């Protein structure tokens, strides 16, 4: 008699390949499990990447799901993570084609997915700056909302994403310039927002742990831009903590 390991191995092989020997009867009913498994996998991707699906159509999205699954089968009992490698798969699968932009669109949608499940930390207001002297300001290091992600693309993916939040959106001309933006959690769901390059560079530097002065320099902000950028992170509730980076270095 076959061992349980042999039975589960044979069952799994028959799920993957309908022509493989079937360890159960009626053999035709194994297709119900195969269909359930395929459907669950595809439904998870449809849920995470609705705009990619909308742009490529159901038939091609189905083909992409099948090829993605061959390359990246589910590695978790929690379907939520099914799409984790889908952006990388699309970037590789569509590299050099006119659809290469779909990889970046998928990156944006995956960031949206992650923001939908990330906790929102309580945010500081700009009044906290009064705790620091003028000489300290350029050395301040910010801890930003953990849900905030930044994305730079060679394609107009933020415009595509925004346009496809309604039904029957027309295609977006892919020859438009690349775009920068952010995704973060809000109380009623994730927010996707396009950013101007200077603000993107500034936020990227802050996210990487650079002190405020360095972030401002790297973004090439003028005086007006500095006030605006500093106001942005506080009014948008992005600052969870801040500290004088120098004192940390001294302590260490």
């Amino acid at each position: 008699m076959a061992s349980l390991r042999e039975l589960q191995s044979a069952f799994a092989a028959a799920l993957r390949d309908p022509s493989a020997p079937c360890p159960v009867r009626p053999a035709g009913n194994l297709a119900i499990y195969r269909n359930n498994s395929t459907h669950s996998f595809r439904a998870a991707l449809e849920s995470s990447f609705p705009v990619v699906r909308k742009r490529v159509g159901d038939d091609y999205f189905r083909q992409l799901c099948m090829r993605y699954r061959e390359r990246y089968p589910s590695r978790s009992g929690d379907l939520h993570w099914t799409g984790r490698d889908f952006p990388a798969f699309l970037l590789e699968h569509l590299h050099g084609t006119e659809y290469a932009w779909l990889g970046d669109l998928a990156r944006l949608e995956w960031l949206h997915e992650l923001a939908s499940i990330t906790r929102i930390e309580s945010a500081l207001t700009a009044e906290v700056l009064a705790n620091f002297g003028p000489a300290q300001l350029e050395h301040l290091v910010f801890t930003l909302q953990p849900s905030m992600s930044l994305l730079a693309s060679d394609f107009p993916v933020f415009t595509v994403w925004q346009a496809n939040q309604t039904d029957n959106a027309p295609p977006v001309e892919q020859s438009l310039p690349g775009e920068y933006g952010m995704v973060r959690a809000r109380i009623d769901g994730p927010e996707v927002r396009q950013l101007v390059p200077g603000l993107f560079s500034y936020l990227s530097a802050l996210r990487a742990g650079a002190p405020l002065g360095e972030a401002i320099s790297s973004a090439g902000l003028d005086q007006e831009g500095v006030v605006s950028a500093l106001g942005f992170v506080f009014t948008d509730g992005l600052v969870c903590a801040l500290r004088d980076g120098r004192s940390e270095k001294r302590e260490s």
Partner: protein
Amino acid sequence: MPRLETRGVREPIPARAGIGLRAVHHDALVAERPPVGWIEAHTENYFHEGGVAVRALERARSNYPLSLHGVGLGLGSVDGVDREHLSRVKRAIARFEPALVSEHACWGHAGGEFFNDLLPLPHTDEAAVLLARQVAEAQDYLGMQLLIENVSAYVTFGHSRLHEWEFLAAVAATSGCGLLLDVNNIYVSSRNLGIDAHSFINGIPIGSVGEIHLAGHARNGNVLIDDHGSQVCAEVWQLYRQAVDRFGALPTLVEWDTNIPALATLVAESRRADLILGEARGLAA
């Protein structure tokens, strides 16, 4: 790990009808507070630290006793139990403090691939021993008893030597788990595989069942599909009466996961179970 500001309803799950918590009902459940005895949520939907769904469960949790029902552990997998998944279940238990936690008598992964379905086990001594061992290990790790549910089946293994009810009874006796008796699954399996549903219910030991599930199913040719997408059928209500006669009034969940109706329709379906439970309590009084 953030804790609930309000601990919520901490009483045990009452011997009344409850409903499955679905995203489309989140707002209505809080706004209308329908008179259901308790709610059940799919554990994996609430693994995360934040998000709309987690906050919705926290709100609902403050009004109703909670049961967490997992679908992803695959406790009968010979490759073992995914420790990361199990740790997430533990964190969800710590966060939401459910009165009941349940999973399925199934397997779900092999060779590193997860099939994300409730796959059937052969009813053999080897499978019963493995499932019981992994259920016991999960219970030790989680620090609480699990209820293990019988799954709908569309196939049989020629290797099975036990009736399904004997298999479940052995797992419960060995591991110390309770059983979650899904009456619709019994009906679906009985019609698909020629099993006697009445013998199934009569073969489950009295005292081993902690919860009952009811749901609708679909028909595809000669095969019944457990899709949780319609009302409970008359035959399943009859089997439910038999189960309540045998096991007494128990927490009973009406599941409706596809073609999800308005909350009022789901609540009305749960009222039918409550009437049968009320009759059982009346007889017992």
